[in-house]
Structure formats: C-alpha cells, structure tokens
C-alpha cells in the first residue's frame, strides 16, 4: 500500500513540474482575484485528512494525513467505515461518504464507527478548515503555474 501511495506522490510531483515548465496556461483573472477566489472556495470546515478506498464491500481508510484531524482523532490506516453520523456505510460508495462529510461541514462534528481488528470502535472526529499554510501553498502553486509574471510579486 505504501509503495502505491509513494508512486502517486511521485506522479503528482512530476505533474507539478511539467505544469510549471509549460507556463503558458494563463489565468484571465488578476493574481488578487484568483487569491480571493481560492480562499473563498476553500473556506469552511472541509478537511478530514484521510484517504478512503472502495473495496467490495465497504470503505477502508488507505491513508491518513500526518497531524491531520483524522490522525488526531485516532483513525488509522486499514479501518473499515461502518457508520458516520448515524448513516450506515457498510454498503456505501466513497461518493456517499463524502456527501455525508459535506453535510456535516457547518458544525464539523463527525461520529464515526469503524471496524478495526474484528471489533467496532467509536471515534469522534472533527472537520477542520484548511490551515493557512495549506491555503497559501495552494495559492502560490496556482500563481506560479498560471501567473508567471506576478508570481514573484506575491
């Protein structure tokens, strides 16, 4: 599993490099507009910090962001999602799980029941807003990609 993940990371890194090198993808807004837009889109409690995978049947945690909300709540790789906020997930797709996460955005509270090593575990997690560092990173990535002229100014 770890091997596969690292492969994805490498591919992502490559893609970023390629994009930066391409450089001709222009964004029609000014840097400030894009900045505002991104901050607006990313506002609210959205971040759990866990990657899930659909296996037949059920949803399994395949990666947990270090020091993310999921990691702090005690979610571990290999946990099977049984229920979330009173919604059974044993037969659900990953899209359905994400929809329940989206529904919980306003208050951010998640009551998860996971299956771990043959037993059930009750976990209370909390969706968190993206950190300032994360957002800044996204913005700078965007600016360096599609606003080459103004990248330095930021």
């Amino acid at each position: 599993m770890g091997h596969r993940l690292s492969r994805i990371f490498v591919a992502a890194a490559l893609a970023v490099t390629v994009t930066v090198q391409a450089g001709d993808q222009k964004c029609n807004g000014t840097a400030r507009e894009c900045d505002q837009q991104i901050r607006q889109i990313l506002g609210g409690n959205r971040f759990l910090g866990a990657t899930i995978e659909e296996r037949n049947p059920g949803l399994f945690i395949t990666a947990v962001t270090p020091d993310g909300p999921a990691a702090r709540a005690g979610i571990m790789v290999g946990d099977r999602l049984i229920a979330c906020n009173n919604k059974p997930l044993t037969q659900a797709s990953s899209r359905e799980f994400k929809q329940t996460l989206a529904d919980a955005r306003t208050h951010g509270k998640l009551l998860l029941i996971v299956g771990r090593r043959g037993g059930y575990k009750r976990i209370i997690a909390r969706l968190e807003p993206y950190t300032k560092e994360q957002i800044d990173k996204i913005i700078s990535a965007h600016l360096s990609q599609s606003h080459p002229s103004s990248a330095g100014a930021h």
Partner: protein
Amino acid sequence: MIDTVLSKLRHATQRAGRPDRVSILLPFLLISIGLGVLAWRSYHLSLRTEQGAKKLAMHHADSAASITAIRVDAAARAEMAQAVEEWQQIERRIGDPTFEALSAWIGQHEWIVSAIYVPDFDPASAIYASENAKSAKGEMRLTREFFTVKGSIKYTYDPRRLLARPSVQTAIRQPRPPGNGTGLRIEQTADVALVTGENPGLRKLRDGFAVVTQLAPPLTPFGIRAIVRTSYVGGSGWENQRVMSLWVSLLALVLLGIGAMLALRGIKKESETMKLRGALIANVSHELRTPLSMIRLGAETLKRGKLKEKERHEIEDTILREVLLLSHLVENVLDVARIQNQSTRALAFTPVHPRDLIRNLLTTYESWIRNKGFTCDVQIDDSIGEQMWDRDAVSRALLNLVDNAIKYSGEDKAIEVVLRQDEEHIIIEVKDHGIGIAGNDLTKIFDPYFRAQFSDTQTRRGAGLGLTLVQQIVESHGGKVEVESTAGSGSTFRLLFPRGLAGDPAQIHSFGAPREAF
C-alpha cells in the same frame, strides 16, 4: 305578403265587438319569447365559449410553463452530469489530475468559470484553474461540488451560459397554440421564454394569461414564462354571437312593444265602443219613445172622435211629423249599424242635378222647417251640371246637416244652404248661427255615438249618428267633409264632392266598404 298580413291585422283590430282584444298580443308575445330565448342561448353560448377559451388558455399556459421548466431543468442537469462524467474519465485515465487536465476540462465546458481540485489526502496540493475567456462584469456565479474517488472538485459556473447551451435551448420548444382547430371562434397564440427575476405564478393579462414557473434549485433565479393570448375572430360581424344576441333581443323587445300597443289600442277602442253603446241605448230608446208616445197620444185622441176640424188637422200634422222623425232616426241607426258591420250595399249612382236635389229636399221639409221657426236661405249656382251621385244617400246627408243646424241653433233661427263649385269640387254648405262646437270636440263629432257636451245636451234629441253617416256617405262618393265652427257663433259644414264623377263606373264605390279598399 307583408301587406296582406298588415291588412289582416288591421282588419282584426278594427272588427268591432270582438271580446278577445288581448289575443292580438299572443302571437307577438310568442315570437318575442322565442327570440328572447334564442338571444339568451346565443349570449350564453358566447359566454361559455369565452370561459372555455380562457380556461383552456390558462391550463395551456400552466402546463406549457411547467413542462418546459421540467425539460430545461433536465437538460441543465444532463449538461452538468456530463461534465462530471467527463472529469471522472479524465481522472481515471491520468491517475493524478494535473493543472492542464483541469484547464482542458474547463475549456471543454464554456459555462464553467473556474474549478479547484482538492485531493483528500493532501489538500495543500490542490489545483485551481480559471477559464481563459475574459468574463464580463455582472455575471452570475453559482458554485457546485462533486466528489471523485480521490478528491473533490468544486467549480463555479455561469448559469446564463449553461442555459444558453444548445442542448438546453432545444428544450425550450414553442408549444402549439391551444384554441386553433377546435372549432371555436377564437385564435390563440402561445409563447414560451426563459426569463429572469419574475415572480412565479399565474398572471392575468388583458387578453390572456402568463404563467411563470421557477426552475429547480440551483437555477431558481430563472423561470420559464408561458404566455397564451386569446383573440376572437370576427369582432363585430354577424358571426359574433354577442352582437347577434343583442340585435335579436332588441327585435324581440320591439315586437313585444308593437303587440302591446296594438292590444292596448284594441282594449281602449273596445271600452270606448262599449261606453258609446250604452249611450246609444239610452239615447235611442229615449228618441224612439218620445215620437211613439206622441203618435199614440194623437191616435187615441183621433179615435175618441168629436173633434173640431182644426184640432184634427193639428193632430194629423203632429202624427205625420213624428212618424217622419221616427223613420229618419231608424234609417240613421240602421245605416250606421250597416256601416259598422261592414255589410256592403252598392250605392245606386245615377245622374243627379244637385240643384234639383237640394230644392226637392227643402221643399219636402219646408213645412217642418217653418214650423220650427227657421228661415232657410238657399243660394244655388245654376251652372253646375249633372253629377253621378246616389240621390237618396246625398239627400240623407244633407237632411242630417239641416236637422243638426235646426237642433243646435239658438235665438238666431236662420240657416243658409249654398251650392257652389270650385276647380275640383262641387260644394254643398250648410251654415247656422247656433251654439257652435268647442274646438276639442271638432275631431270627435264624426265618431259614432259621440255627442258634444252642452249644458242642455239632453234636451236636444239625437243618437249621435248623424255626422258619422254624413261622413261615410261623402267619403263613399270620394269626397270629404269640412267643418268650421266657433263655440257660440255657429257652424259651417261643407260637403266637398269631387267633380267629374259623372259616368265613370270605376268610381262607383260600395257603400260602407272598409276605408283601405279605396
């Protein structure tokens, strides 16, 4: 056709003594009721047609708007679903999404303005891309999110541009107008359009209905407006039922009015006749009784005998006079009755010298006139030739006039009888210096049984038939009667006979025939 109907009607109204005067109203009433029902039905039908057309227009507008809204919603949703599907294919193909892939995806869908892809595991490596085309000011922006296997995409889009997509536009189909071809006399047009910022619901227009249906969220600022207008074909012609019914009901009212008028006139005439009949019975019985009792008295005296020659002579004179009066009265009554029953008796037109006629008459009644203390001044134009007259009838007319002159004279007991001629007429005038006739009675004196009201009417004998007879006789000769009179200073009656009546058989009229036969 109409003439015969009219003459029959007139005939019916003029027939005296018919007890069912009101029955003349019946056909008019029936026709009017029929027409009224027809008019009402027609109006009702037009009302129903209009209501039906309105209801149809309303339902049509409503269904057109909601069906189109559903269709547009479905098309927009299909467009969005297609975008999601395309993105998932891209993600499946390249594994980890890149900025280029996102930009290309945005470029494929011109209604998407910007998008951000956030991987679940590492949000910090999210990709943001914005469209290349310069966006205009005041554009609407809506946001939508969907989830993929490894992350989620949140994109903003311009709903106007989404709704302008050909796939959405084809969903706005113009419906067929509802009313045409249904056999109703209406023309309806339907119009469906995409609108912004209009309140949903039914709105009444001057000539139709507009229905606005909101699109489903998130496109609620937009709505589908369907307008159905109704107009009537042939606004003011005969084919317009409402105009028709108005005219028909007017016709019914007019017919009813005519019927009521005829019936009223009949009733009035009848009541007048009844009144006059009562007067006649009273008058005539009085008139008959007086001479009869005089004759009886005279006859009884004669039978008792032992009378002086002079007394006997006086009694004989009295009897003769009263018999004359009586026969005169009876003739008048019978003639007038004959006129009123319209039994026809041909006048016997013979060549008559008016001069001789007048002289003979006055000679016959000279003693009677003189007995009453009257003097008779006669002026005769000798140049007048023979006329084709009914001798007896004209004599009776003249006698009636002389009788009237004597009856209605006061102190001045002078009568003038003049025979003269002018361009067109042979004229016989009878003039007295008596009590005259009041102005408002002048028109009525020729009516049967009419007697002018004087303080002493009852002392003057008569049945009120004399002048009626005079007029009938003169008119059956093709002439007319004129009268000039002032109350208190005498009257002049003038009989105008047309000249040249001599020898023309076509001019021979039947006595007492209905007037319209002339």
